[in-house]
């Protein structure tokens, strides 16, 4: 168990261990365990996959199969601010691509890449269900709707601390 020190803070690790205890041997619940693991660490650390495999009695390869199948799961750490841009149809029709281009140009990254200072990761998703507010983005889960390209600077600069 000494390995788990590297997983995250003490608090995170004990939360994670409790999670493994709760779902011990319950192969069917792998999705919820992965979701909760990601909830604890912000991503799914490689070490945690080993431990989940042991606890739930499921092959590691199968777990990686699941992680890589679903777009919600990530094996890379999160940034301080996670910007998710909706590329659903309503947002697309109302200019989401231009907004994405502007965001990427401003931060100097590609989709899924972390900025050098570790502050931002930009991801895209398929419809936040806020189509009435299109085009929309979320930053750490908070929605910013009815965006114009001109708004991008202000919003991102608002997070300069």
């Amino acid at each position: 168990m000494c390995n788990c020190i590297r997983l995250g803070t003490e608090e995170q690790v004990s939360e994670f261990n409790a999670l493994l205890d709760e779902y011990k041997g319950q192969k069917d619940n792998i999705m919820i365990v992965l979701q909760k693991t990601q909830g604890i660490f912000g991503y799914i650390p490689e070490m945690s996959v080993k431990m989940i495999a042991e606890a739930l009695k499921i092959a590691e390869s199968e777990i990686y199969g699941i992680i890589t199948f679903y777009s919600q799961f990530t094996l890379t750490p999160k940034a301080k601010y996670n910007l998710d841009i909706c590329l659903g149809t309503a947002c697309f029709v109302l200019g989401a691509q231009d907004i994405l281009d502007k965001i990427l140009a401003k931060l100097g990254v590609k989709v899924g890449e972390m900025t050098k200072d570790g502050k931002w990761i930009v991801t895209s998703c398929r419809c936040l269900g806020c189509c009435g507010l299109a085009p929309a983005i979320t930053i750490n889960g908070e929605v910013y709707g009815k965006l114009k390209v001109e708004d991008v600077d202000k919003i991102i600069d608002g997070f300069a601390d």
Partner: protein
Amino acid sequence: MNLESLESLKKKYLAEVEFRRKGDTSGVDYKYNIMVCGGTGCRSCKSKKVQEKLEEVIKAHNLEKEIMVNGVGCFGLCVNGPIVLVYPQDAMYEKVSVDDCEEIITNLQEGKLVERLLHHENGKAVEKKDEIDFCKKQKYIARNNAEYMSLENILGDYIALDGYAALHKVVTTMSQEDVIKTIKDSGLRGRGGAGFPTGNKWEFTRVVEAPQKYVICNADEGDPGAFMDRSIIESNPHAIIEAMAICGYAIGASKGFVYLRAEYPLAGERLQSAIDEANKMGLLGENIFGTNFSFDLQIKYGAGAFVCGEETALMRSIEGKRGEPTLKPPYPAEKGLYGCPSVINNVETLANIAQIINNGAAWFNSIGTNDSKGTKVFALTGKIKNSGLIELPMGTTIREIIYDIGGGIPNGKKFKAVQMGGPSGGCIPEEYLDTPIDYKSLNDLGSMMGSGGMIVVDEDTCMVNLAKFFLQFTRDESCGKCTPCRIGNKRILEILDKITDGKATMEDLDKLEDLCHYVKNNSLCGLGQTSPNPVLSTLKYFRHEYIEHIKDHKCRAGVCKALTSYRITDKCIGCSACSRQCPVGAITGEVRKKFDINDEKCIKCGKCFETCRFGAIVKG
């Protein structure tokens, strides 16, 4: 829980609901009830803060006894959120901010409304919400009563509005066959896409002998642009719980799962607390209403895979596997979740069930058209003035939806098409605007009902680019299991790329069409079988745009950058604003004389076009 306690709960909360519904003041001791929308749309416009501020102002004025404040489910007009409803005036405020709260309360003290916050039509304020054009033609079944139920007492208000009466009726007085006959007679068809008759689905599952069966609610609303399922779960979760229990009784299942998208945290929260409450009250769990019928319900979360909306893939995902579809048959009715017979119904389908039981099959059957009964909820978005959720009787024409309810296209632009059924559907051009919406008419046009997403596009949208957008979506979301979908969609997209880059030939267009049919006919599941539809329908109605791209190297909407060029006309007064904005220095000229764009340098970013205040720059 028994009938008596259900009745007494109903009695207890009826007064509050009747006050909202009919303005009946007899049973309540307050004078006004303000309800703040707590749907995802309005919450993201800070509606929670508005609610808190209203409560604060009321407290400061010592009006707690006179004015009640509650949260309420999604009202549908998300674009004008946060929405605030005021009872008994039955008024609707739009775009309310915390700064408006003081005025709302001080006016209400004198029984007055704040006119500037009301919805305006033709420059006039509309006092009652039901008189707004957006609401006038709507008929609520799936979204019934959502505007009268408070989020704080969601079960109580649901029961006051006859909630769980249907479940009681079913388990205490009806046989399984009776229930299924009622649903069959109602003519209800699945609202999630294919439109399969719900009663038949239940019947097929009922007749299979098995020790364990399952009821599954498909709440994996993956169609980008549709959000009715989210809204229904957030506003009225008990309607889904009740319907699933009824289905469980009818088919002989004791366990149900709601498969919910992980992108809908608020819906998950509300549904979970509703399930907990229903368990506590004995509306779920062992021996419901003192009968032998037991039903247990659990939420399972998706993790962002569009293909999981396909029923066989969805079941694999519930089982904790990669969400890859399997061949049908066997259908879920025979071999579904964990190999057991299962019914899978969409959220909106289920939202109709309790009311069909309460009001009878004949009532439901009398609404709609021959082929399609009842109502359908549409998510009207895109280039439209009133964007939001609308529920209408089947058979309403597309024109009525876009112009009478949606208010038409903003900024004086011209309507081009409406995309129905999301990435599996197709577009409908102007000449078919008078088509009544039902399953058959839409299929005949090469489109489909789908989940009810309606994306309106105007003259500024390039139809080739729109088709490309959907193919990018299906390419990304293809699970990769079968070759036609995995590789075919990628190749379709490559040809579309060629066309929008101006590098395609007319031969490519034939290849494109052939490939579309191939993918459609040979893919394993519904995703691949429908993914070429956006291309085929745009080819059918907007072939000239494809040809323009190929032959004339022209994109009439000015969207495809490789085919767009910018030109300065004689309207130019030589202000130099555009040349200062141009990031690559492609615009040169002398001040007060006409400027010019160097086409070779130009990167087609469109900055000059946006900057010019004299309309001197044209694209095309």
